[in-house]
């Protein structure tokens, strides 16, 4: 089967395996060597490309790590490498990086250029410096210490404040951010015919775990590509019930206005999950079905007391509470022919408090040492119900049953929190590994549990009362 997409301003039709990574394709098939290989696991951003999707007659661009993206996932889309951003002179992003000496050895630089051009495209009415920095939160530089790149990002942001909201793409082209062919992309993509789903045996979403864990095997696996399967990507709220389709990405969840409205720290919490280009492709079902004991979304959804809906090949559908889904290390209540189709939970209401905590060696773009979430419904100072979860302290993403039940029905107080923390300590069995010793994880979870309450009720609790 042929995979068709636009690579910069060139139409590609390739018979290569759909599992081929976009990175290998652009470097070794299309011979575009500006996209670099730094780690092949989505942790450095040297291979960042933009992917533009035609949605409701508009182009939507996002940055992705090309090392984890199969070409099947860019069918009918626009893939942009650094070469596809070049003009006769330097584009505005490139010029800003040069102006501020934001490049030294240069190996990470194309990734930064691509990410910042992505920011230029996606930036809205009032672009902020912090959005510019967010756009490069998945790009690692070992030479500059980032300060020069920050200065470049500041310059780019101030330029983008002038952007014409009515004709953003035209403005970007006329101001030398993007080459002119960008204006024709929408039309060219619309002429690429839709294809049937590429169906195989093993489901893959964004590829952010499979391509890390099974790098050498991917070419031999018969993959079922779910990323763009129709109907599997939406975050939908009706009657306070939130339904997230399985291939919704972390970014889809993060940017959901309903979730942002319902959960005060939502953006800050979600920013702790991986990096922008990974969030753009990592799917919620992938995070759940991976069964990682430290999956951030899993921990968040456990505290939402979410339910997941599974469907098998015969269309049999069943629901299971996420807290009952995990049976042991990487073991789930899920048959081989089942896939997760959606996740549902009650949107936190006015009297519901939610908090997510995560600590790692590096606070962003890292895997949690310990993460934890809590959802509590309150009636004044009485906890009506509580759902608390923790990752990194057990073979499965843990729903803290006893802790949750100790809290429920009680009056919120220092004594209660302390007692709950003692119960919590009996529910966990952390092991020592590369992310930390068991003693550390134990202490850390206690601290993060306290942090929930300090964060949610800053005027009620202080650190020194709790420890």
């Amino acid at each position, binding site marked *: 089967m042929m995979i068709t997409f636009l690579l910069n301003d060139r139409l590609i039709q390739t018979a290569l395996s759909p599992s081929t990574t976009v990175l290998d394709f652009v470097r070794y098939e299309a011979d575009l060597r500006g996209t670099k290989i730094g780690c092949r696991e989505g942790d450095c951003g040297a291979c960042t490309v933009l992917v533009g999707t035609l949605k409701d007659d508009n182009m939507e661009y996002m940055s992705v790590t090309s090392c984890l993206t199969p070409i099947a996932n860019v069918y009918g889309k626009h893939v942009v490498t650094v070469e596809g951003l070049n003009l006769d002179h330097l584009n505005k992003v490139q010029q800003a990086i040069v*102006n501020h000496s934001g490049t030294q050895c240069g190996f990470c630089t194309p990734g930064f250029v691509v990410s910042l051009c992505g920011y230029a495209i996606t930036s809205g009415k009032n672009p902020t410096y912090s959005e510019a920095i967010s756009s490069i939160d998945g790009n690692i530089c070992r030479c500059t210490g980032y300060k020069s790149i920050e200065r470049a990002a500041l310059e780019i942001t101030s330029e983008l404040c002038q952007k014409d909201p009515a004709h953003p793409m035209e403005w970007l082209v006329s101001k030398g951010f993007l080459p002119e062919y960008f204006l024709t992309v929408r039309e060219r993509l619309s002429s690429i015919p839709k294809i049937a789903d590429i169906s195989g045996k093993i489901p893959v979403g964004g590829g952010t775990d499979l391509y890390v864990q099974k790098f050498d095997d991917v070419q031999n696996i018969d993959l079922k590509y779910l990323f763009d399967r129709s109907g599997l990507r939406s975050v939908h709220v009706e009657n306070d019930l939130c339904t997230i389709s399985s291939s919704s990405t972390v970014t889809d969840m993060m940017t959901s206005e309903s979730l942002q409205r319902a959960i005060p720290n939502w953006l800050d919490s979600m920013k702790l999950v991986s990096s922008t280009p990974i969030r753009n492709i990592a799917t919620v079902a992938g995070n759940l079905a991976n069964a990682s004991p430290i999956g951030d979304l899993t921990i968040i959804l456990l505290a939402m007391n979410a339910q997941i809906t599974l469907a098998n090949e015969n269309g049999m559908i069943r629901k299971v509470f996420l807290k009952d889904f995990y049976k042991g290390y990487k073991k789930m209540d899920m048959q081989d022919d089942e896939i997760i189709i959606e996740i549902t939970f009650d949107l936190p209401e006015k009297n519901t408090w939610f908090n997510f905590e995560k600590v790692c060696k590096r606070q962003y773009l890292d*895997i949690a040492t310990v993460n934890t979430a809590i959802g509590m419904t309150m009636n004044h100072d009485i906890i009506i119900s509580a759902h608390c979860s923790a990752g990194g302290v057990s073979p499965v993403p843990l729903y803290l049953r006893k802790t949750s039940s100790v809290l429920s029905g009680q009056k919120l107080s220092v004594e209660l929190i302390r007692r709950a923390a003692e119960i919590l300590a009996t529910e966990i069995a952390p092991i020592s590994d590369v992310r930390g010793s068991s003693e550390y994880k134990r202490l*850390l979870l206690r601290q993060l549990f306290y942090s929930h309450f300090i964060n949610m009720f800053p005027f009620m609790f202080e650190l020194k009362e709790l420890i």
Partner: protein
Amino acid sequence: MINIDAKNHVTGRSVYVDDMPEIKGTLYALPFDLPAAHARIKKINIDKAISSPGIIKILTCTDIPGENQIGGVIPDEPLFAEDEVHYCGQPAGIIIGESESECRQARRKITYEFDELPVITCPREAHGKGLLIIPPRTFRLGNSAEAWKDCEHVIEGTADINGQEHIYLETQGAYAWLKEDGSIYLASSTQAPTAVQFAVSRVLNVPMHKIEVDTVRLGGGFGGKEDQATPWAVMAALAAQHTQKPVKLILHRMDDVRMTGKRHPYSSDFKIGLSKDLKILAYEVTHYQNAGASADLSPAILERTLFHSTNAYFIPNVIATAYSCRTNLPPNTAFRGFGGPQGKCVIEAAIVKAAETIGVCPDEIQKANLVNDGDEFPYGQIMQDTEAVNSWNEAERNFALEEVKHRTDSFNMNNNRFKKGYAVQPICFGISFTNTMMNHARALVHIYKDGSVVVSTGAVEMGQGVNTKLLQVAANEFGISPSKVRIESANTLRIANTSPTAASSGADLNGKALKIACTNLKERLANVAVNSLGFTDVKFENDRVIDPASNKEILWEDLVIKTFQQRISLSEHAHYATPLINFDRTKEKGHPFAYHVYGTAIIEVTVDCLKGIYHFDSVKIVHDFGKSMNRDVDLGQVEGGLVQGIGWMTMEEVIYDEKGKLLTNALSTYKIPDIYSVPDEIVIEHLDSTGSDFAIYKSKAVGEPPFMYALGAYFAIRKAVKAFNPDAELSFNAPYTPEKVLMDLYRNHSQ
């Protein structure tokens, strides 16, 4: 002047080894290794791998035509393991195939039979068993044994400092092919083209003149490609020799991190004695360096640890001893600072412990002992043109140290959850290869008859901007616009017998050689102007050659062609060797450094005592650039070095298990600073200093010294931790990861 590579970098046009167009028929090589850190090899079963699709050949130690030896300093390192392996990741051979992915598939089919031998990962344990790379070395000054009795305070302790993985963004790699007469072209991502050439010659049994090593640029080096780019280049060349085909070898990140050495971990014991007025009277230190399984550059790194064991302080009585301990880890290697950071870290730990014991601020001790002109360091060099006091005083004044102290104290008084800490970090770093014979360089300059100029040196561009500085030298000497000058790759055919681009010396050594070449060429051009044009005085400026006395002038291009027509050479190959420096290892005394670089940083941090995480509020530095010839490039070196150092002191944790297996074997488990983990504010001021005549244009070397400002990051965090948990007994154990911070915050916590 902005880095001359910048435009190609931002457009993705810069070419690294893996970006070179492949010659048709190119094969790929992939190293394989045993899953054991110390074992006697019984059998390596390669049959299934060799019959795997796309596989051409598998080479092991028996396929080496020359010596199976790549040890640069000491011949103790085979290219491929023979009877034993001594660390996890030691290559046992290579698979050569039609594609990288087929090689990887084949590698999984190799099985190994071996008997495991005891694994040692701890340098003190190795020392206890007498496993040393070289005999111990000791630097002495005065008589510390006598001095202790004069000390009011004597404090002892231990400091442990972990290693650091380089994470150059471009992994190790090389691309080799044969030329018509069997000579070899080798593109290598190396800081040391000559070292590669020499090792290929030795292993392949081919004379050096048949090996052309070419290095355009590196995607980061940091020392990791000084000695350890060599094996991969040799393997590519060996594979090309065996198959008579072009062969490329680019390491996958996980292979690179597993198979290559890192910054040396150290474990050190110290004893420090102070007078009543906080003068350090005596200091004794013993360093146990974790060298890994073979020497690599460890002896030279050990030496620099000793050179810098007293950092920027004058201490009259010193004994500094260092053991290079052989363990079952990958051979540890050069990394920005080259043993200096570890040596400095221990004296700083000693000062902090002394300050905590006496009940003063560490900076009071630091300031009271800064080195001055005329002071002698333990290695015998009498200090001149010191800037330690100047940079300290500037930093203290410009960055209002007293205010920082008050602010910190009052913040800590009023906050329970968050605590602030600060540290002052002076540095003094010696410039020159400590191995005196390596301090030389050559430059080849051609002026073409159209007036354009091309320069070759042995300097390798790896982002540090050396090519930009070299271009400035040539353009400046000739008085022509930079666009008329091109800097060529480092190539062993054009420049022979080079020292690696290392020790912060690239711009100095190569720049000085280039300046000599330009001067000689100018002399010939000037002669033509005098003899043929009647100039009485000759100046090269603004693309012209002028006689200020008579107002005569001629375009650069016109004088060049005139010189050419007179059959005078427009090419020059010049040599430079740093004068004056010397070091006598039998006495451990001498004058090893051309000059020193100084500076002082003030670092402020905020620790979240609930979660054990921290953030740096600011780092403010007064740095001794001398007369910086390129402020853009030099600023980038200070910022980049600082942040890399902060990584080493905070989040970068190299973890091996007790079997010698690396657990932090990928970027998912080994974390280097991202954009959110850098200090909110970095301020860098230029110290008004004279520079040094041994520095090119008095612009001091800048690659390594700023790295060491980051030592203060550790001590700033420690100060904040102490503010929360004043009574806890804290050890010195870098890096200060969030784990160690949280454990320390709640260690014997009484609240």
